[in-house]
């Protein structure tokens, strides 16, 4: 998919479809008329300069904020037009890794991961413990079950948050700034992990980031939000956009200001 247009929103294998979405706080419009689609198995990047509304868009995609106008569809079901039970079911298919981890500080890592499992599955304690150990070992934190979030480093925080996001085997994983505050090697490892999750489990992945290295390493589809125009100015494969996007702002962004 090259530079995207609205028509592609109705593609057959579209997992998430955003139609004419306008986001606003009261009268203050943050972004308007966003239309794009995320296909099953995509690693979709939401990019743009600071303060353009990337995180706000993510919050709209995970059902935390209601759109001022427009629709968000998951497998063809419009989230905000569905009854609460359906919303709950849709939400169950999400996993979210928040910007600063958002691990519950009063719970150990194991309890953090186990909480959704205990709440939403019929597994017994022993089975939950096994799933929890598996998830923690997938993110390289085997043996840290009994640690509290305050006792581990920032990079481990991010990975533990990912383990919690993966707890219910979500179909869609959302990441808010996964590599912010990580050293290049940890950041690279996290990128590899994200790619592996997509390849092995077929998870659809949505990432908010402005780390260029990450964008090109993992992203195969994207949307660019412009803070000035208050709307999306480009969408498609980030590597293609870098070289061939008609909008100079997008090209400059993807070339670190050198184009």
């Amino acid at each position, binding site marked *: 998919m090259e530079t995207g247009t609205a028509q592609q929103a109705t593609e057959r294998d579209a997992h998430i479809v955003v139609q004419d979405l306008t986001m606003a706080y009261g009268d203050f419009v943050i972004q308007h008329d966003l239309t794009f689609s995320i296909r099953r198995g995509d690693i979709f990047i939401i990019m743009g300069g600071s303060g353009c509304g990337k995180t706000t868009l993510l919050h709209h995609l995970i059902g935390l904020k209601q759109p001022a106008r427009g629709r968000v569809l998951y497998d063809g079901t419009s989230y905000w037009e569905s009854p609460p039970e359906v919303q709950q079911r849709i939400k169950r298919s999400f996993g979210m890794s928040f910007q600063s981890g958002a691990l519950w500080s009063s719970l150990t890592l194991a309890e953090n991961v186990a909480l959704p499992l205990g709440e939403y599955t019929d597994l017994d304690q022993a089975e939950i413990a096994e799933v929890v150990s598996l998830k923690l*070992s997938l993110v390289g934190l085997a043996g*840290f079950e009994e640690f509290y979030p305050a006792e581990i480093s920032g990079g481990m925080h991010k990975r533990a948050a990912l383990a919690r996001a993966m707890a219910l085997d979500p179909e869609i994983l959302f990441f808010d700034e996964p590599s912010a505050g990580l050293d290049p090697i940890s950041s690279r490892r996290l990128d590899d992990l994200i790619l592996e999750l997509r390849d*092995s489990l077929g998870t659809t992945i949505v990432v908010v980031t402005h780390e260029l290295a990450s964008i090109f390493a993992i992203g195969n589809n994207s949307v660019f939000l412009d803070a000035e125009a208050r709307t999306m100015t480009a969408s498609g494969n980030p590597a293609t956009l870098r070289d061939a996007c008609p909008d100079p702002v997008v090209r400059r962004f993807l070339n670190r200001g050198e184009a």
Partner: protein
Amino acid sequence: MPGQLSLEFPAPDNLQLVLAGSWLLATGAPPVRDLEQQLLKDGNIRRISFNGKAISDWDSALLTFLARVYRLAGEHSIDIDPAGLPDGARRMMVLATAVPPAEAAGKHGKESLLGRIGQIALAMWRATPEMLRFLGEVTLSLGRLVRGKAQFRGSDLMLLIQDVGPQALPIVALVSFLVGLIVAYMGAAQLAQFGAQIYIANLVGLGMTREMGALMTGVIMAGRTGAAYAAQLGTMQVNEEIDAFRTLGFNPIDFLVLPRMLALILIMPGMVLYSDIVGITAGMFVSVTAFDIGTFEYYQQTVRSMEWRHIWGGVLKGTIYGMLIAFAGCLRGIQCGRSAQAVGEATTSAVVTGILFIVIAASLLTILFQQLGI
């Protein structure tokens, strides 16, 4: 069809696990018991391989099953040949076994009861010098204030005074009024037995000024302001704001603790007087409405029973309570750890410590005043 497992032997030393059906958390995976028994019974097995062609659907249920098989194989030192697994599952298992479990595993082992009591005792013992050090720092800071060298912003102090003073007036009034009411009723019931209702004025007047005014104001301030101080400073600790002050060469004790202590110390005398007056008014209200005593009569009796030493004694007590509350609140805030949990603990601890300090000080001061004849 839920997950199915059967064991096959392509070669005597090769156990093949044939997996079929859907391996989902929702439907559950078969237990590894059979496999475990097979391994115990048959010492010849050197290799476990898989045939996963008939797996229709899988999620973490398959992976946790595999993790168990891997662990069993490890215990019996048997090789694993993952070639027959679904592609994605094979790669996830590589990922899961890439990093060996941390050495620190199980470091929060269960402690015996005695052990835990010991830990708590040691923690309390360690907390004592910490408190003394904080006391020392605050004293030094007060010294700098006296010499006019303490760095803090006057506008901060004004804002803090507004928070602890005017904004606290309604709740102090409500509590003091009710306490005055209670003292008056309680006393009246006894005094009425020998027709001495007029002494309600003495009881309420002395009770409020000497003890209750200061005590109730102190308890309210501990719950309202001490908690707020601990929560503010604790959150600043979490956000590294206190570190930022230190880095820029500001002394956080001067900048944060000193104005908070000053605000409470400056406000407390007025607040105690206010509480006294409201409490005495409540006593008057009860006497006039329920016990037929004239307003002027009550006023006269109050003035006659009162001496200046009662009033300033109470005010002095209140001021000391204020100092202790601010001290406890700031101490717990500055000591706070770096998590939401820690802020909660700091706030709780600030109120508990504050009230504990107040009660201890109240007892000591009451005895001291008695001895000195104040």
